[in-house]
Protein backbone atom coordinates (compact mmCIF):
# COMPACT_ATOMS: atom_id res chain seq x y z
CA UNK A 1 0.00 0.00 0.00
CA UNK A 2 2.89 2.34 0.84
CA UNK A 3 4.30 1.73 -2.65
CA UNK A 4 0.97 2.48 -4.31
CA UNK A 5 0.68 5.78 -2.47
CA UNK A 6 4.26 6.91 -3.11
CA UNK A 7 4.52 10.27 -4.97
CA UNK A 8 6.22 8.47 -7.87
CA UNK A 9 3.22 6.20 -8.49
CA UNK A 10 0.74 9.00 -7.78
CA UNK A 11 2.39 11.30 -10.35
CA UNK A 12 2.31 8.47 -12.87
CA UNK A 13 -1.40 7.99 -12.13
CA UNK A 14 -1.98 11.73 -12.51
CA UNK A 15 -0.40 11.70 -15.98
CA UNK A 16 -2.30 8.56 -16.98
CA UNK A 17 -5.67 9.93 -15.87
CA UNK A 18 -4.98 13.35 -17.43
CA UNK A 19 -4.18 11.71 -20.78
CA UNK A 20 -7.23 9.43 -20.65
CA UNK A 21 -9.39 12.51 -19.96
CA UNK A 22 -7.79 14.17 -23.01
CA UNK A 23 -6.00 16.89 -21.07
CA UNK A 24 -3.74 18.95 -23.39
CA UNK A 25 -1.09 19.01 -20.64
CA UNK A 26 2.38 17.90 -21.75
CA UNK A 27 5.96 17.88 -20.51
CA UNK A 28 8.21 19.72 -23.03
CA UNK A 29 9.92 17.18 -25.29
CA UNK A 30 13.55 18.22 -24.80
CA UNK A 31 13.01 18.53 -21.04
CA UNK A 32 11.51 15.01 -20.83
CA UNK A 33 14.42 13.58 -22.83
CA UNK A 34 16.84 15.38 -20.49
CA UNK A 35 15.06 13.87 -17.48
CA UNK A 36 15.45 10.36 -18.96
CA UNK A 37 19.18 10.88 -19.47
CA UNK A 38 19.54 12.28 -15.93
CA UNK A 39 17.76 9.27 -14.39
CA UNK A 40 19.81 6.72 -16.34
CA UNK A 41 23.03 8.58 -15.53
CA UNK A 42 22.14 8.69 -11.81
CA UNK A 43 21.23 4.99 -11.72
CA UNK A 44 24.40 4.04 -13.65
CA UNK A 45 26.65 6.12 -11.40
CA UNK A 46 25.14 4.79 -8.16
CA UNK A 47 25.36 1.22 -9.47
CA UNK A 48 29.00 1.76 -10.44
CA UNK A 49 29.88 3.16 -7.02
CA UNK A 50 28.22 0.16 -5.34
CA UNK A 51 30.08 -2.22 -7.67
CA UNK A 52 33.39 -0.56 -6.79
CA UNK A 53 32.82 -1.62 -3.16
CA UNK A 54 32.23 -5.31 -3.86
CA UNK A 55 34.12 -7.88 -5.90
CA UNK A 56 32.49 -9.58 -8.88
CA UNK A 57 32.06 -13.11 -7.57
CA UNK A 58 30.56 -16.31 -8.94
CA UNK A 59 27.01 -15.32 -7.95
CA UNK A 60 27.24 -12.05 -9.87
CA UNK A 61 28.54 -13.85 -12.96
CA UNK A 62 25.78 -16.44 -12.61
CA UNK A 63 23.16 -13.66 -12.45
CA UNK A 64 24.68 -12.09 -15.59
CA UNK A 65 24.39 -15.47 -17.35
CA UNK A 66 20.82 -16.06 -16.14
CA UNK A 67 19.80 -12.53 -17.20
CA UNK A 68 21.21 -13.14 -20.69
CA UNK A 69 19.37 -16.45 -20.99
CA UNK A 70 16.13 -14.84 -19.75
CA UNK A 71 16.39 -12.06 -22.31
CA UNK A 72 17.05 -14.57 -25.12
CA UNK A 73 14.37 -16.98 -23.91
CA UNK A 74 11.39 -14.89 -22.75
CA UNK A 75 10.55 -13.75 -26.32
CA UNK A 76 10.16 -17.43 -27.32
CA UNK A 77 7.44 -17.87 -24.67
CA UNK A 78 5.85 -14.53 -25.54
CA UNK A 79 5.85 -15.37 -29.26
CA UNK A 80 4.29 -18.78 -28.64
CA UNK A 81 1.60 -17.26 -26.38
CA UNK A 82 0.73 -14.57 -28.90
CA UNK A 83 0.62 -16.96 -31.87
CA UNK A 84 -1.58 -19.45 -30.01
CA UNK A 85 -4.00 -16.98 -28.41
CA UNK A 86 -4.22 -14.09 -30.88
CA UNK A 87 -4.48 -13.42 -34.60
CA UNK A 88 -1.28 -11.37 -34.73
CA UNK A 89 0.89 -12.01 -37.78
CA UNK A 90 4.25 -13.71 -37.37
CA UNK A 91 6.03 -10.34 -37.74
CA UNK A 92 3.82 -8.51 -35.23
CA UNK A 93 4.02 -11.37 -32.74
CA UNK A 94 7.83 -11.53 -33.05
CA UNK A 95 8.26 -7.75 -32.70
CA UNK A 96 5.96 -7.70 -29.66
CA UNK A 97 7.71 -10.72 -28.13
CA UNK A 98 11.05 -8.90 -28.41
CA UNK A 99 9.73 -6.12 -26.18
CA UNK A 100 8.92 -8.64 -23.43
CA UNK A 101 12.40 -10.17 -23.34
CA UNK A 102 14.05 -6.78 -23.12
CA UNK A 103 13.53 -4.39 -20.19
CA UNK A 104 11.97 -1.07 -19.27
CA UNK A 105 14.53 1.06 -17.51
CA UNK A 106 11.80 3.24 -15.97
CA UNK A 107 10.10 0.19 -14.44
CA UNK A 108 13.53 -0.78 -13.09
CA UNK A 109 13.97 2.69 -11.55
CA UNK A 110 10.46 2.55 -10.06
CA UNK A 111 11.24 -0.87 -8.53
CA UNK A 112 14.49 0.46 -7.02
CA UNK A 113 12.51 3.35 -5.56
CA UNK A 114 9.83 1.02 -4.15
CA UNK A 115 12.50 -1.20 -2.57
CA UNK A 116 14.19 1.78 -0.94
CA UNK A 117 10.81 2.79 0.47
CA UNK A 118 10.69 -0.68 2.02
CA UNK A 119 14.16 -0.17 3.46
CA UNK A 120 15.89 -2.61 1.08
CA UNK A 121 18.96 -1.60 -0.94
CA UNK A 122 19.48 -3.90 -3.94
CA UNK A 123 23.00 -4.71 -5.19
CA UNK A 124 24.68 -2.19 -7.48
CA UNK A 125 25.56 -4.78 -10.13
CA UNK A 126 21.85 -5.06 -11.07
CA UNK A 127 22.29 -1.92 -13.18
CA UNK A 128 24.65 -3.99 -15.34
CA UNK A 129 22.03 -6.77 -15.40
CA UNK A 130 19.48 -4.26 -16.73
CA UNK A 131 21.88 -3.21 -19.48
CA UNK A 132 22.69 -6.85 -20.31
CA UNK A 133 18.99 -7.66 -20.74
CA UNK A 134 18.34 -4.84 -23.24
CA UNK A 135 19.73 -6.54 -26.33
CA UNK A 136 19.48 -10.37 -26.54
CA UNK A 137 15.68 -10.23 -26.88
CA UNK A 138 16.06 -8.18 -30.05
CA UNK A 139 18.13 -10.96 -31.63
CA UNK A 140 15.51 -13.58 -30.70
CA UNK A 141 12.71 -11.38 -32.09
CA UNK A 142 14.53 -10.93 -35.39
CA UNK A 143 15.23 -14.66 -35.62
CA UNK A 144 11.55 -15.43 -34.97
CA UNK A 145 10.36 -12.92 -37.56
CA UNK A 146 12.88 -13.66 -40.29
CA UNK A 147 12.90 -17.47 -40.01
CA UNK A 148 12.03 -18.92 -43.39
CA UNK A 149 11.95 -15.52 -45.08
CA UNK A 150 14.01 -14.78 -48.22
CA UNK A 151 17.15 -12.71 -47.67
CA UNK A 152 16.63 -8.98 -48.33
CA UNK A 153 17.89 -7.39 -51.53
CA UNK A 154 21.40 -6.10 -51.25
CA UNK A 155 21.04 -2.40 -52.06
CA UNK A 156 20.68 0.91 -50.24
CA UNK A 157 17.03 0.16 -49.51
CA UNK A 158 17.77 -3.19 -47.90
CA UNK A 159 18.48 -3.77 -44.24
CA UNK A 160 21.64 -1.96 -43.21
CA UNK A 161 23.18 -4.37 -40.74
CA UNK A 162 25.75 -1.86 -39.50
CA UNK A 163 23.02 0.64 -38.71
CA UNK A 164 21.04 -2.00 -36.85
CA UNK A 165 24.05 -3.24 -34.86
CA UNK A 166 24.84 0.36 -33.90
CA UNK A 167 21.26 0.89 -32.75
CA UNK A 168 21.14 -2.37 -30.79
CA UNK A 169 24.50 -2.05 -29.06
CA UNK A 170 24.95 1.71 -28.79
CA UNK A 171 21.43 2.97 -28.16
CA UNK A 172 21.05 5.86 -25.72
CA UNK A 173 20.00 3.81 -22.71
CA UNK A 174 22.91 1.34 -23.00
CA UNK A 175 25.49 4.09 -23.56
CA UNK A 176 24.28 6.23 -20.64
CA UNK A 177 23.65 3.33 -18.24
CA UNK A 178 26.89 1.46 -18.94
CA UNK A 179 28.86 4.71 -19.24
CA UNK A 180 27.50 5.85 -15.85
CA UNK A 181 28.26 2.44 -14.37
CA UNK A 182 31.90 2.49 -15.52
CA UNK A 183 32.39 6.12 -14.46
CA UNK A 184 30.81 5.36 -11.06
CA UNK A 185 33.08 2.32 -10.61
CA UNK A 186 36.17 4.38 -11.50
CA UNK A 187 35.18 7.41 -9.40
CA UNK A 188 34.14 5.33 -6.39
CA UNK A 189 32.40 6.69 -3.30
CA UNK A 190 34.81 9.65 -2.94
CA UNK A 191 34.29 10.77 -6.53
CA UNK A 192 30.53 10.36 -6.25
CA UNK A 193 30.37 12.46 -3.09
CA UNK A 194 31.14 15.57 -5.16
CA UNK A 195 28.21 14.73 -7.49
CA UNK A 196 25.76 13.75 -4.75
CA UNK A 197 24.08 17.19 -4.51
CA UNK A 198 23.10 16.82 -8.18
CA UNK A 199 22.34 13.10 -8.36
CA UNK A 200 21.02 12.13 -4.91
CA UNK A 201 18.83 14.86 -3.39
CA UNK A 202 16.96 15.90 -6.59
CA UNK A 203 16.53 12.30 -7.79
CA UNK A 204 13.07 11.73 -6.28
CA UNK A 205 11.70 15.01 -7.63
CA UNK A 206 13.08 14.35 -11.12
CA UNK A 207 11.64 10.83 -11.01
CA UNK A 208 8.20 12.29 -10.17
CA UNK A 209 8.42 14.67 -13.13
CA UNK A 210 9.48 11.85 -15.40
CA UNK A 211 6.71 9.56 -14.16
CA UNK A 212 4.18 12.31 -14.88
CA UNK A 213 5.42 12.32 -18.48
CA UNK A 214 5.37 8.51 -18.60
CA UNK A 215 1.77 8.54 -17.36
CA UNK A 216 0.85 10.97 -20.11
CA UNK A 217 2.61 8.81 -22.71
CA UNK A 218 1.00 5.61 -21.43
CA UNK A 219 -2.48 7.16 -21.33
CA UNK A 220 -2.19 8.68 -24.82
CA UNK A 221 -0.73 5.44 -26.19
CA UNK A 222 -3.62 3.46 -24.72
CA UNK A 223 -6.25 5.94 -25.91
CA UNK A 224 -4.90 5.98 -29.48
CA UNK A 225 -3.83 2.38 -29.79
CA UNK A 226 -6.46 0.32 -27.99
CA UNK A 227 -8.38 -0.22 -31.23
CA UNK A 228 -5.36 -2.04 -32.68
CA UNK A 229 -5.46 -4.54 -29.80
CA UNK A 230 -7.87 -7.43 -29.47
CA UNK A 231 -8.78 -9.01 -26.17
CA UNK A 232 -6.07 -11.68 -26.48
CA UNK A 233 -3.13 -9.26 -27.01
CA UNK A 234 -4.51 -7.01 -24.24
CA UNK A 235 -4.65 -9.99 -21.86
CA UNK A 236 -1.13 -10.92 -22.97
CA UNK A 237 0.06 -7.48 -21.78
CA UNK A 238 -1.20 -8.41 -18.31
CA UNK A 239 -0.23 -12.07 -17.97
CA UNK A 240 3.14 -12.03 -19.74
CA UNK A 241 4.77 -9.89 -17.00
CA UNK A 242 3.60 -12.45 -14.45
CA UNK A 243 5.09 -15.30 -16.48
CA UNK A 244 8.40 -13.43 -16.80
CA UNK A 245 8.47 -12.63 -13.09
CA UNK A 246 7.60 -16.22 -12.12
CA UNK A 247 10.40 -17.64 -14.29
CA UNK A 248 12.87 -15.12 -12.86
CA UNK A 249 11.81 -16.06 -9.32
CA UNK A 250 12.28 -19.74 -10.18
CA UNK A 251 15.82 -19.27 -11.50
CA UNK A 252 16.73 -16.88 -8.66
CA UNK A 253 16.11 -19.42 -5.92
CA UNK A 254 19.07 -21.74 -6.68
CA UNK A 255 21.30 -18.66 -6.94
CA UNK A 256 20.46 -17.71 -3.35
CA UNK A 257 19.70 -14.08 -4.21
CA UNK A 258 18.63 -11.67 -1.48
CA UNK A 259 15.00 -10.52 -1.57
CA UNK A 260 15.82 -7.11 -3.08
CA UNK A 261 17.98 -8.57 -5.84
CA UNK A 262 15.37 -11.23 -6.63
CA UNK A 263 12.62 -8.57 -6.77
CA UNK A 264 14.69 -6.55 -9.25
CA UNK A 265 15.41 -9.58 -11.46
CA UNK A 266 11.66 -10.39 -11.39
CA UNK A 267 10.81 -6.79 -12.29
CA UNK A 268 13.30 -6.73 -15.16
CA UNK A 269 11.91 -10.00 -16.53
CA UNK A 270 8.34 -8.72 -16.15
CA UNK A 271 8.96 -5.37 -17.81
CA UNK A 272 8.66 -4.59 -21.50
CA UNK A 273 10.98 -2.28 -23.41
CA UNK A 274 9.69 0.97 -24.83
CA UNK A 275 12.99 2.60 -25.87
CA UNK A 276 15.59 0.18 -27.24
CA UNK A 277 13.37 -2.46 -28.85
CA UNK A 278 10.91 -0.14 -30.64
CA UNK A 279 13.87 1.68 -32.17
CA UNK A 280 15.45 -1.60 -33.31
CA UNK A 281 12.13 -2.90 -34.65
CA UNK A 282 11.55 0.24 -36.73
CA UNK A 283 14.92 -0.41 -38.38
CA UNK A 284 14.84 -4.19 -38.73
CA UNK A 285 11.11 -5.00 -38.95
CA UNK A 286 9.47 -1.79 -40.15
CA UNK A 287 6.46 -3.77 -41.42
CA UNK A 288 5.58 -4.70 -37.81
CA UNK A 289 2.73 -2.56 -36.49
CA UNK A 290 4.04 -0.13 -33.80
CA UNK A 291 0.51 0.60 -32.54
CA UNK A 292 0.38 -3.03 -31.31
CA UNK A 293 3.73 -3.41 -29.58
CA UNK A 294 3.97 0.15 -28.24
CA UNK A 295 0.40 0.15 -26.90
CA UNK A 296 1.02 -3.17 -25.18
CA UNK A 297 4.41 -2.24 -23.76
CA UNK A 298 3.68 1.35 -22.74
CA UNK A 299 -0.09 1.43 -22.38
CA UNK A 300 -0.80 -1.93 -20.75
CA UNK A 301 2.27 -3.62 -19.22
CA UNK A 302 4.03 -0.50 -17.93
CA UNK A 303 1.05 0.80 -15.88
CA UNK A 304 0.33 -2.75 -14.68
CA UNK A 305 3.88 -3.16 -13.41
CA UNK A 306 3.97 0.28 -11.78
CA UNK A 307 0.61 -0.09 -9.99
CA UNK A 308 0.41 -3.80 -9.19
CA UNK A 309 3.38 -5.73 -10.51
CA UNK A 310 6.21 -4.16 -8.52
CA UNK A 311 4.49 -4.47 -5.09
CA UNK A 312 3.62 -8.07 -6.01
CA UNK A 313 7.18 -8.95 -7.10
CA UNK A 314 8.60 -7.42 -3.91
CA UNK A 315 6.11 -9.36 -1.77
CA UNK A 316 6.84 -12.66 -3.57
CA UNK A 317 10.61 -12.13 -3.44
CA UNK A 318 10.42 -11.28 0.27
CA UNK A 319 8.39 -14.43 0.94
CA UNK A 320 10.71 -16.66 -1.13
CA UNK A 321 14.07 -15.22 -0.10
CA UNK A 322 13.02 -14.40 3.42
Amino acid at each position, binding site marked *: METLLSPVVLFFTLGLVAALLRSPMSVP*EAFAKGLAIYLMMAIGLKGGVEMSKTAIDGTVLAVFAVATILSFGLPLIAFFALRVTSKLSRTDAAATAGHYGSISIVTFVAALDALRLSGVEPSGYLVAVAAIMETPAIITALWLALRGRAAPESNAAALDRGELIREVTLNASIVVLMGGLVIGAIAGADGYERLAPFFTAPFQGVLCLFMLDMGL*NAGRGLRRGWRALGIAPFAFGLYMPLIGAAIAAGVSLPLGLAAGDMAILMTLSASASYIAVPAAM*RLALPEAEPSIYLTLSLGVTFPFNIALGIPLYIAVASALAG
Partner: protein
Amino acid sequence: MTDLHDKLRLEIIVEKPALRRMENVLEEAGVKGWTVIPCLSGFGGRTRWSRGTDISGASDMIVLISIGGADVIMSALDPLHKLLDRHIGVLSVSEVKVLRPGLF
Protein backbone atom coordinates in the same frame (compact mmCIF):
# COMPACT_ATOMS: atom_id res chain seq x y z
CA MET B 1 13.26 40.88 -64.50
CA THR B 2 14.96 38.05 -62.54
CA ASP B 3 14.97 34.63 -64.29
CA LEU B 4 13.51 31.64 -62.46
CA HIS B 5 14.43 28.02 -63.29
CA ASP B 6 12.34 24.83 -63.27
CA LYS B 7 13.22 22.14 -60.70
CA LEU B 8 11.46 19.33 -58.84
CA ARG B 9 10.77 19.53 -55.13
CA LEU B 10 10.77 16.19 -53.30
CA GLU B 11 8.98 16.07 -49.97
CA ILE B 12 8.95 12.94 -47.82
CA ILE B 13 7.15 12.69 -44.49
CA VAL B 14 8.66 9.57 -42.94
CA GLU B 15 9.38 7.91 -39.59
CA LYS B 16 12.69 9.05 -38.14
CA PRO B 17 14.34 5.60 -38.02
CA ALA B 18 14.16 5.48 -41.84
CA LEU B 19 15.94 8.82 -42.28
CA ARG B 20 19.45 7.42 -42.71
CA ARG B 21 18.22 5.04 -45.42
CA MET B 22 16.42 7.86 -47.24
CA GLU B 23 19.56 9.99 -47.10
CA ASN B 24 21.66 7.12 -48.48
CA VAL B 25 19.31 6.82 -51.45
CA LEU B 26 19.42 10.56 -52.16
CA GLU B 27 23.19 10.60 -51.89
CA GLU B 28 23.53 7.67 -54.31
CA ALA B 29 21.17 9.40 -56.74
CA GLY B 30 23.40 12.48 -56.75
CA VAL B 31 21.05 14.85 -54.95
CA LYS B 32 23.07 17.88 -53.89
CA GLY B 33 21.24 18.78 -50.69
CA TRP B 34 18.23 18.33 -48.46
CA THR B 35 16.73 19.65 -45.26
CA VAL B 36 15.11 17.69 -42.45
CA ILE B 37 12.39 19.19 -40.24
CA PRO B 38 10.81 17.55 -37.16
CA CYS B 39 7.04 16.96 -37.19
CA LEU B 40 4.81 17.88 -34.26
CA SER B 41 1.74 15.71 -34.76
CA GLY B 42 -0.57 14.31 -37.40
CA PHE B 43 -3.19 11.80 -38.43
CA GLY B 44 -2.91 8.89 -40.85
CA GLY B 45 -3.79 5.22 -41.16
CA ARG B 46 -6.69 5.81 -38.74
CA THR B 47 -4.16 6.79 -36.03
CA ARG B 48 -3.38 10.13 -34.43
CA TRP B 49 0.27 10.56 -33.59
CA SER B 50 2.38 13.21 -31.91
CA ARG B 51 6.03 13.76 -31.23
CA GLY B 52 7.12 11.50 -28.38
CA THR B 53 9.46 12.19 -25.50
CA ASP B 54 11.37 8.88 -25.55
CA ILE B 55 15.07 9.36 -26.15
CA SER B 56 15.30 6.91 -29.05
CA GLY B 57 12.97 9.01 -31.24
CA ALA B 58 11.66 5.74 -32.71
CA SER B 59 8.10 7.08 -32.92
CA ASP B 60 9.04 10.50 -34.28
CA MET B 61 8.19 11.60 -37.80
CA ILE B 62 10.30 13.98 -39.86
CA VAL B 63 9.91 15.87 -43.14
CA LEU B 64 12.73 15.63 -45.65
CA ILE B 65 12.72 18.29 -48.36
CA SER B 66 15.00 18.28 -51.36
CA ILE B 67 15.04 20.29 -54.59
CA GLY B 68 16.87 19.04 -57.67
CA GLY B 69 16.90 18.54 -61.39
CA ALA B 70 14.21 16.27 -62.81
CA ASP B 71 16.73 13.59 -63.82
CA VAL B 72 18.25 13.31 -60.36
CA ILE B 73 14.96 13.39 -58.44
CA MET B 74 13.31 10.88 -60.79
CA SER B 75 16.24 8.47 -60.48
CA ALA B 76 15.78 8.47 -56.68
CA LEU B 77 12.07 7.66 -56.82
CA ASP B 78 12.31 3.91 -57.45
CA PRO B 79 14.55 3.08 -54.44
CA LEU B 80 12.56 5.54 -52.30
CA HIS B 81 9.38 3.75 -53.31
CA LYS B 82 10.89 0.42 -52.16
CA LEU B 83 11.81 1.99 -48.81
CA LEU B 84 8.35 3.43 -48.31
CA ASP B 85 6.83 0.00 -48.96
CA ARG B 86 8.37 -1.01 -45.60
CA HIS B 87 8.44 2.23 -43.61
CA ILE B 88 5.68 4.58 -42.45
CA GLY B 89 5.68 7.61 -44.72
CA VAL B 90 4.37 9.49 -47.75
CA LEU B 91 6.22 11.07 -50.68
CA SER B 92 5.24 13.85 -53.04
CA VAL B 93 6.99 15.60 -55.92
CA SER B 94 6.02 19.05 -57.16
CA GLU B 95 7.27 21.45 -59.79
CA VAL B 96 8.91 24.54 -58.37
CA LYS B 97 10.91 27.48 -59.65
CA VAL B 98 14.25 28.41 -58.12
CA LEU B 99 16.36 31.52 -58.22
CA ARG B 100 19.88 30.03 -58.35
CA PRO B 101 19.84 26.75 -60.36
CA GLY B 102 23.52 26.02 -59.75
CA LEU B 103 22.75 25.13 -56.14
CA PHE B 104 20.60 22.19 -57.20
